[in-house]
């Protein structure tokens, strides 16, 4: 049971690190540091830097948060199945 929990934790932390990296790139790098370069590109009349700050990053956050919630649900179910399997076999 302990090694299942340890594995659950490794996966949880890995997921957090991946999502936070994307989050940091989008919110800090694209929306603040590179905003001037992005503004040179236009997206249907909207400067891309403006769009990144206003909408793009918020939509990215919604996707990240959705990925986190659904992946954690799956990890929870996997862990439960493994632990129940152990209990049944012991």
């Amino acid at each position, binding site marked *: 049971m302990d090694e299942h929990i340890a594995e659950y934790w490794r996966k949880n932390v890995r997921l957090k690190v991946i999502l936070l990296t994307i989050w940091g790139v989008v919110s800090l790098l694209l929306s603040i540091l590179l*905003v001037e370069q992005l503004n040179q590109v236009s997206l249907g009349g909207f400067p891309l830097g403006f769009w990144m700050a206003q909408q793009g990053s918020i939509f990215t956050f919604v996707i990240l948060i959705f990925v986190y919630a659904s992946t954690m649900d799956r990890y929870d179910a996997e862990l439960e199945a493994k632990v129940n399997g152990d209990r049944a076999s012991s």
Partner: protein
Amino acid sequence: MNWTFFMVTTVIVATFGIGLYGVRLARTTSDFFVATRAVGPMWNASAIAGEYLSAASFLGIAGLVLTQGASAMWYPLGYAAGYLMLLLFVAAPLRRFGAYTIPDFAEGRFGNPRMRRLVAVGVLVIAWFYLLPQMKGAGVTFAVLTGAPYWVGVVLVGVLVMASVSFGGMKGVTYVQAFHYWTKLVAIAVPAVILIGLFGLDDDGRSVFGDQDPRFPGERVVEFTETEELRVDEPMTVVVDGVPTLWEGVVTVAAGSEVVFDKEDAVPQPVDRPLADGYSWALPFSDRKPLHLVAAISLLLATVLGTMGLPHILVRFYTNRDGASSRRTAVGTLALVGFFYLFPWIYAAMGRLWMPELYLTGETEVVVLSVPGLVGGSGGSFLTGLVAAGAFSAFLSTSSGLLVSVAGALSHDLAGTLVRDADDRRRLQAFRLAAVVGGLVAMGLGLVVRPYEINVLVGWAFAIAASAFCPLLILGIWWPRLTMRGAVAGVIVGGITSTTAILVTMIEPQTGWIGVFLAQPAIVTVPLAFAVMAALSWGRSVSDDVESLLLGMHNPDRMSRTAPLDRSPTPNDRSSNTAVPRARRTIG
């Protein structure tokens, strides 16, 4: 005006109607305080979004974009990004821990009731700070719509909120706030779409995203209510009180003058609040000043890390059934909040292009209320009524959520020893009394904050929350070695340095680098609070109790031997450090 009156009244009546319905459902004391956690994720997400979208989101963002340009977009970005931090690091563990306010968590984590009182003081500071912009928004909105003095709106909203919180409690508030979210969304989205459809985003090739300075789109009559000094860069002839006058250089307009500007006249610059020029309005940081970059990053840090420390937001996650539904609630909330943020900038862009006279009258903060009037006729007054109703929803929902937190901190956390052994009826009385006291304080402070921008006030509340509570929550949940000594010192250092910096800025704004750090202190005070907590906790041994306490927070729900904790979390559990035994039970 008639539409405005009708719609605002409808919102107020509906608020109380739904609140009363909620009260009928709230049969037990636990219902009253945390809605017995029987609220489904979609309802809860609407309620959280309704509570989160305050005067700052509804009025403030558009007003700030109108004056400062695209750089004000960092406010909504930070508000949204903060939710992600809350979800990843705080929401589910706190739900499993069984703590439903930050004071609950602080006492449970360290097993010491003094911790609860210290943190409750922080809750009061943050909640009151966050109430100020709501009160200000109410005062300004009411003044613009009816011509009444500023204080009338402050008192009106203050009284309504005190009444609804005293009678409705948490369950009433949940449904009311869900209703408020949808009101706000309709109120901001419908006029925005109609305005874009009717007027478009450019005028003779001048796009809202372009870098031109603002010009009048047609003949405009501006009434100056106060004496104003204006800088006129291009000499032009205007009609002042019926007399054609040549304006150049710096001109003084007397109070009560009526000035007619012609189409294509450049908008003069008020000397005491200069406009952002077109280029820096449309393209932030084009001036390449590191000062502005640091200010933006500090603001982003405050909003991103402050969300988790806002007392009225965290409480909501306790009304979820378990950790997994906390996560689902957060997904829904962010989607709803993000959808709302599609719209506010449209009002700013419309205002800059079609109503640049707002720059001269100084009513930039209420651009959301003014721009729908462009439509004209009864359609225009209908749309104005709609945004007014949305604005009142914003004041009412955020203020009532905050007041619940204030009343809880006062009646339960600070005066806890007085009412702890009382029966349910006495505790409700204490809560209601605290709601009235808390509301009166907020109204009093609200009357004096008129000079400050709504969003700036909100940004400060976030900065204090980030400095005082973010380190406590993150380290308290994720680092078993955090000691009470470290936690106390960190909360005090973070809270006092950030609050002092902001008070200095409010009383006597500073310039240069010092000014940036005092006005946006988060970039200094948040790392400082983390460092103090870590330094004072370093090398101390940690008891097994704390280890198992933290394990209990992080195990998935169904791993806990006990079913989802189904104990009344009323703010009066006898031992008051109830979170400890409860969390231990879940280790399995």
